[in-house]
């Protein structure tokens, strides 16, 4: 899907460059406290719709065809399906208790859901709307990522402090990699050479070699004037060329810009308060961040590495997903 996106987007970007200065994409933001999803038009950074969803929406993702958005509503123990054309909830997928984050496979047919309350990852057939099975993982599963070749699913467990490597064919755990405390998010480098896992309480990002399945490097963050306990990495976004990564640092109210080759932090960008997750516009011109405490979304100009805009959304914005309208 990402390849498909890529081709489509580059074509579109050309067209856009001629037609309009700003890119016209659509961003969906889950607001954990308001029980809503805010829809943002990125051509003029305006809120065009607020959709009512179930209780405690967090993980949010477009389907591969861009026609639907899945949103995990943890307190309703399910995943809701938003029809992008209608901009309303049209269906519900079954999941285990308290779903938080999830990952779709490359074809968009199978959904893997982290169920925090159950120490399981639930596998769902998207078309048939049925549960295919569960995988027992560590305590409080959260972060989910699928390798670029689709063979490995990574799940992080927050109290066990591991990244579990799950074979997507056999659905068995094949490796467990210990990382720092409260791992929350996993992100693969597009060439499959690295997987990054953020540890919120440990305050680091572990760089894991997916072949050796061991931590090869830990990225630490230092911000003058801030106690290290306030630096709590969660969301990670990496450019498709694998050169630059952006790491949301929670109550440090900053996004770290990391040079991927050297694993060095090159810059800290001040965003809103308690920054959770990040998403690129498909052309990668902009990176949007959800700022939980200040109830807004910051827009970062990726090339300039500058915050250019703040958009007010619902209460406690948490997750974000972006696609072409």
């Amino acid at each position: 899907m990402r390849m498909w996106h890529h081709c489509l987007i580059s074509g579109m970007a050309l067209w856009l460059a001629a037609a309009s200065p700003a890119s016209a994409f659509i961003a969906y933001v889950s607001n954990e406290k308001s029980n809503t999803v805010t829809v943002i038009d990125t051509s003029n950074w305006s809120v065009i719709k607020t959709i009512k969803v179930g209780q405690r929406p967090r993980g949010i993702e477009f389907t591969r065809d861009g026609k639907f958005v899945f949103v995990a509503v943890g307190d309703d123990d399910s995943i809701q399906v938003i029809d992008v054309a209608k901009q309303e909830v049209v269906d519900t997928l079954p999941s285990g208790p308290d779903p938080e984050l999830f990952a779709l496979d490359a074809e968009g047919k199978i959904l893997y859901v982290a169920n925090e309350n159950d120490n399981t990852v639930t596998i769902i057939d998207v078309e048939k709307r049925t549960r295919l099975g569960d995988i027992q993982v560590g305590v409080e599963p959260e972060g989910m990522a699928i390798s670029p070749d689709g063979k490995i699913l990574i799940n992080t467990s927050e109290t066990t402090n591991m990244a579990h490597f799950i074979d997507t064919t056999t659905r068995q755990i094949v490796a467990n990699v210990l990382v720092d405390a409260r791992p929350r998010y996993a992100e693969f480098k597009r060439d499959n050479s690295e997987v990054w896992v953020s540890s919120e309480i440990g305050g680091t990002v572990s760089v894991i070699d997916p072949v050796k399945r061991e931590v090869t490097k830990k990225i630490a963050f230092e911000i003058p004037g801030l106690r290290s306990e306030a630096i709590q990495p969660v969301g990670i976004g990496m450019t498709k060329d694998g050169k630059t990564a952006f790491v949301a640092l929670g109550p440090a109210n900053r996004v770290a810009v990391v040079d991927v080759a050297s694993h060095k932090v090159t810059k800290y960008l001040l965003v809103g308060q308690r920054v959770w997750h990040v998403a690129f516009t498909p052309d990668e011109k902009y990176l949007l961040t959800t700022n939980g405490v200040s109830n807004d979304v910051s827009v970062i100009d990726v090339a300039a590495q500058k915050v250019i805009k703040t958009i007010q959304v619902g209460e406690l914005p948490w997750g974000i997903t972006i696609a072409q309208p």
Partner: protein
Amino acid sequence: MIRWLVAAIGLSVAAAPVLAAAPIEIGIGYLGRAGVKPKLSLVELPAENDGVAGARLAVEDNNTTGKFLNQRFTLEEVRLKDNEDVGKAAATLAERAGFIITDLPADDLLKAADALRDRGTLLLNAGAIDDRLREQDCRANVIHVAPTRSMLADALAQYLVWKQWKRWLFVVGSHDRDKLYADALRRAATRFGAKIVQERTFEDTGGARRTDSGVTLIQRQIPTFTQQAPAYDVLVAADESEAFASYLPYRTWDPRPVAGSAGLVPTSWHAAQDQWGAIQIQNRFVKLNSRQMTALDMQAWTAARMIGEATSRTKSGDPKAISDFLKGPDFSVAAFKGRRLTLRDWNLQLRQPILLVDGRMVVSVSPQEGFLHQVSELDTLGADRPETKCKLR
């Protein structure tokens, strides 16, 4: 023939699952006194398994992690009867457990620590809040997971000062531990700029905490007891013995909020705490124990999780290796308090945020914004390094 045999062995080793080796066994003991502590409020009466229920949940959590690392944790509970020798009981338990979580009064804890001194057993104090255990009476084989009285008092004082409730009417119970808590609150008032406008003592004349005609009498007693006070913002009560403080809210002569041992109470944990992923542990705890999680449960959970954390980091079941890691610079643990918890290396006290609760909700969490510290804001709570009287031996 021999070559063939070797080849066959080689094959069988290769085919065996990775985790076929015998698991590393980590025995954890839980040592407490039998009997239930008295409370004024019926809804606050502790369950019989108060504390150990938290340790049990942590052992389950550790075992979920342990199954990926080939480590297995067990928990053994020992309850002391009235005249039972704590040193002997601790020594017997230490034969099977390299770590003992304790919910013991201060003197008992010191006896247990001294009895185990040459054994290499590590004690984790989950129950005693006495400052002296971390100061003049500190021991090198005891880690303190429970907060101290001074940490609790400082957490409350920071909030009251932030709220600009700086004039305190101070009411102290007549028992020794009430006086210890009063000392901590007085110190906190001086430290953070509050003023005790007047101090009164509430004499506990004994008698039952529950009577059929109780309320009528209390409704007359408390207003009289609190009248003719100088102007004050908040009544702060020190009543660890549970003799009177819970009678104060809504009954004071002047309409004023109550804090300390009733009203707004500082504590390490509460069943209403749901921030920072805490809802997950609250749910797990209720599922396992069919009741809500108390501060003592959380302190015992944290103690057992610290052992699990150190075991997974060191990949060792050796109590010495685990103790050294816990006391070393690389240790930290996540405990649903919004930041990592670490040990103060000068007295082995766990740094931790303190919740301020009103019985139904978490009102605030200290340290409060603006109380700064050069090392960790958590060290604005309790005795800090320059003030310590502890010499770890």
